[in-house]
């Protein structure tokens, strides 16, 4: 294995930061060199992520590539990292989207190129750090530190109302994480450690028993922080502003990765640490998620601004993810994880495409476009494919995730599944209608006749995206197999923890337990 093998996660986490440091010492005038360095660093990072993804053992339910060293002695904070079936996918997603967003800004970002790429790479370190940290404190550190580069990306390179959006973004997120910090401290106080696995062990061995009231409070303290990030209705109001005002790269990373941190946090912390509260409040959260799905879709329908439309579609899509998570069964959770990746790829790609339109026409208003498929056929085709993937057409990635989620939701409560299915129809409505207004029909505005089609850089990016979309839609096995063990173990853990509690919970858990037979899940997948 060697040194690199033993410290692969450290390298993975800090390689982008090293790249950012290199860029920090370059002259601001050498914009081209800076772009290339950033791109190469992010591509090496992507390769590393692929290596970790392929080296990930399918039979191990626990953490892999673990690194654990003491860092701060009092309180005992460890430098503890590892990946399981959940985080390995998100690491790969982050690795995929960062070079894409650098490429997407290749011609759009012209001022302060150096600082821009510095922040993008620093942001990548923060994101990877969040996904691989297994120490509550270390996690919190990356979680907070990552906000600063994002804040600058929105605030410096964003559109007209960028200052408002940047401050709103950071304050919202800070408010959530502040409460989480208190909860983390409370847990530390009860357990004497920040090590997530040690805390889980104490919980499962009965060494630590949280009173129901305490558990409920802690659950909400963690959950609200994550729900703001997701964002779950009614905490979503920062999102349309931030997504719309951010530059293309910012929107891609925000939608593609940052939102996933919320759902990741729910899966990594809320469910395993507070299983009873998760079961108790599952219905409330599910209802909020469904409201988010329907509300996001309805609001997206009436948006005049393309970017805002895509932003609201994120609210709806992430509603699906949360619904899947709180179905608390294997189908739902696997679907949710899969949908997290799908949404990252599809919505990221949508933002890139909208960015391409904006670069050409300097407007994002739907009414300014029309009939573009005759003037930019290649861009139109890519847009069509990505739109279809986003609305969950079979053979595309979105279908697999949404199908599993709805299946899982049905099994937890038939009404949830039915309502979520309505959301799928809504998604088709607003996405296709948007496509129709922008690309089909007559060219009404003469300015739209003269715009150039995709260049080589843009084609290369979109071909990569389309390949991933099709692969994930047609052959999802490599992804699903990696999460099987982790998800099975997680669902079992919740079922076990809640069986001993109340009779009602016992029944529910037993139902979950029977539903997660492996044969059944692989059947559902086809």
């Amino acid at each position: 294995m060697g040194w690199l093998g033993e410290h692969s996660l450290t390298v993975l986490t800090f390689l982008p930061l090293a790249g950012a440091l290199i860029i920090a010492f370059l002259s601001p005038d050498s914009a081209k060199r800076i772009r290339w360095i950033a791109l190469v660093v992010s591509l090496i990072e992507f390769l590393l992520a692929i290596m970790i993804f392929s080296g990930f053992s399918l039979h191990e339910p626990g953490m892999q590539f673990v690194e654990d060293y003491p860092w701060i002695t009092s309180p005992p904070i460890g430098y503890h990292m590892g990946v399981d079936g959940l985080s390995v996918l998100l690491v790969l997603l982050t690795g995929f989207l960062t070079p894409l967003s650098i490429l997407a800004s290749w011609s759009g970002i012209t001022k302060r190129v150096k600082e821009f790429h510095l922040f993008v790479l620093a942001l990548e370190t923060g994101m990877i750090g969040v996904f691989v940290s297994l120490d509550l404190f270390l996690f919190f550190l990356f979680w907070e530190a990552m906000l600063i580069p994002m804040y600058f990306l929105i605030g410096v390179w964003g559109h007209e109302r960028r200052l408002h959006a940047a401050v709103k973004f950071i304050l919202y997120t800070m408010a959530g994480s502040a409460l989480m910090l208190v909860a983390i401290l409370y847990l530390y106080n009860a357990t004497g450690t920040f090590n997530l696995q040690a805390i889980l062990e104490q919980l499962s061995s009965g060494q630590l028993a949280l009173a129901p009231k305490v558990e409920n409070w802690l659950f909400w303290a963690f959950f609200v922080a994550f729900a703001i990030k997701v964002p779950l209705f009614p905490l979503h109001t920062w999102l349309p502003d931030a997504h719309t005002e951010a530059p293309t790269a910012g929107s891609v990373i925000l939608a593609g990765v940052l939102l996933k941190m919320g759902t990741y946090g729910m899966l990594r912390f809320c469910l395993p640490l507070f299983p009873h509260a998760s079961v108790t409040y599952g219905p409330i959260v599910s209802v909020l998620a469904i409201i988010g799905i329907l509300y996001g879709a309805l609001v997206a329908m009436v948006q005049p601004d393309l970017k805002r439309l895509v932003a609201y579609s994120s609210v709806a899509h992430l509603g699906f993810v949360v619904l899947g998570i709180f179905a608390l069964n294997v189908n739902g959770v696997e679907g949710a994880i899969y949908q997290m990746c799908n949404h990252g790829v599809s919505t990221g790609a949508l933002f890139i495409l909208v960015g391409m339109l904006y670069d050409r026409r300097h407007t994002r208003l739907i009414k300014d476009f029309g009939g573009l498929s005759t003037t930019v056929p290649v861009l139109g085709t890519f847009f069509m494919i990505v739109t279809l993937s986003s609305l969950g057409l079979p053979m595309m990635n979105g279908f697999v995730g949404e199908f599993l989620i709805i299946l899982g939701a049905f099994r937890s409560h038939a009404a949830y599944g039915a309502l979520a299915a309505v959301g799928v129809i809504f998604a088709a409505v607003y996405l296709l209608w948007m496509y129709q207004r922008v690309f089909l029909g007559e060219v009404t505005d003469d300015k739209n006749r003269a715009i150039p089609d995709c260049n080589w850089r843009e084609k290369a990016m979109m071909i990569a995206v389309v390949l991933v979309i099709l692969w994930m839609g047609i052959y999802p096995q490599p992804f699903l197999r990696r999460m099987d063990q982790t998800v099975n173990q997680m669902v079992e853990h919740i079922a076990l923890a809640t069986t001993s509690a109340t009779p009602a919970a016992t029944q529910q858990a037993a139902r979950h337990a029977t539903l997660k037979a492996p044969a059944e899940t692989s059947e559902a997948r086809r």
Partner: protein
Amino acid sequence: MMTVKAADIFRLLPEIILSAFAVLVMVLDPFVKTRKSGLGWLALAGVIATGVGTFWTSQAPGESFRRSLAADPFSLYFILIFLLVAALTILGSVRYLERDNINHGEFYALVLMATVGACFMAASMDLILLFIGLEISSISTYILAGFKRTDALSNEASLKYFLLGSFATAFFLYGIAFVYGLTGTTNLLTINERLGRGDPAAASHFLWVAAILLFVGIAFKASTAPFQIWTPDVYQGAPAPVSALLSVGPKAAAFAILLRVFLGGLATTSAVTFWVLWLSAILTMCLGNLGALFQPNVKRLLGYSSIAHAGYVLVGIAAALRTGGAEGSASVLFYLIAYALMNVGAFVLVAHLAGTGERATSIDDYTGLGYLRPGTAAVLSVLLLSLAGLPTTAGFFAKFYVFRAAVHAHLIGLTIVAVLNSVVSWYYYLRIVVAMYMREGKTEASTYAVPWPLGTALFVSVVGILFLGLYPNLFLKLASLAARPLP
């Protein structure tokens, strides 16, 4: 007749060296006609010499002068903070005084005297001696606040600080009188012993009155609510390097007294003092942050922010009072060193950016600074983000330890108020960052290169902030060690 032993003198070494240098600067001042900054370097040498003396003293800690002074880890730790503040202030003032044409030698002498006073405040075990330390420090800082003799704002600051300050010290003295009347002594150790032994005075309600009177005096110096009103005016009017000193030196000294008196001497009143501090902490944090929120002037903004920080410190002290454990006090001590590094750094940098005569002190003046002076703006950003409490900076761990102590003391409500306040504070610290990097327009702030003495001070601040933020072990250990003799 009291006999003075060699050990007594030895344990007073830091204060003696510092006073000697202060007098030396004073005496040499008339003879130095042109190069007054030489006196600044002399003062800095005094601070460094005192640092060596403090290290020497720390080899044999103990009480001196019949238990009226203590050279214990607690006081030595505080002396370290005061010396750091003095050194950074002097480094930040040398060019400032030349630029604003107030280059008088007594400035440095007064900085040293203010520091001597603060050292006495931290080291005294006797209320009378403590009061004398308070007065030495106060009178020096009254003069420093009005050091720009021809500037109306500076005069106003000095007068305001003087009038309210003397009022507050009178309360403090009144409190001492009560304590003496009840216990028959002014020595904190003896007070503690007598009250702990079940002296009838322990049950007296007048003891609570005494505690509250003492708190009023201390609260003024520490600028904690409801005695914080003067803070923004004084910090705005005083020369910015003086504000740097004011916002940390006397404040830290006041917290040292608070810990010594409420955890040590009057520990039996903790049932009352806890609630006083609890209430004051909430008020201080909220009022400080609210005041800073829409404040357009950077000096005033930092003034309000320093009030808010005093509130976080009070949270730590309240936790210490609740548990009686060293964790709360240790978190306070750690907080103060982090706060010293970032707040002095921020104020001396603001002094430089304000330009000749301190004209550019509005946030709007900083517009676009990030691209004209990227290095300076980056340093200011680090200082501000540390004040806001960004992880990997000292400010984060400072808050983290205080909150941890509070959670440990089961003060969950207080902790939630504190963390929410700290979220609010992000807004105004970021306003400065926004102006520097995200607004287009003409920079009014001074774009001259940072002079090297100030550069040195900023280097120390930033390296210290990052060191404490990435590897807090060392100083946390020191802080825990220093907090142990309490109560």
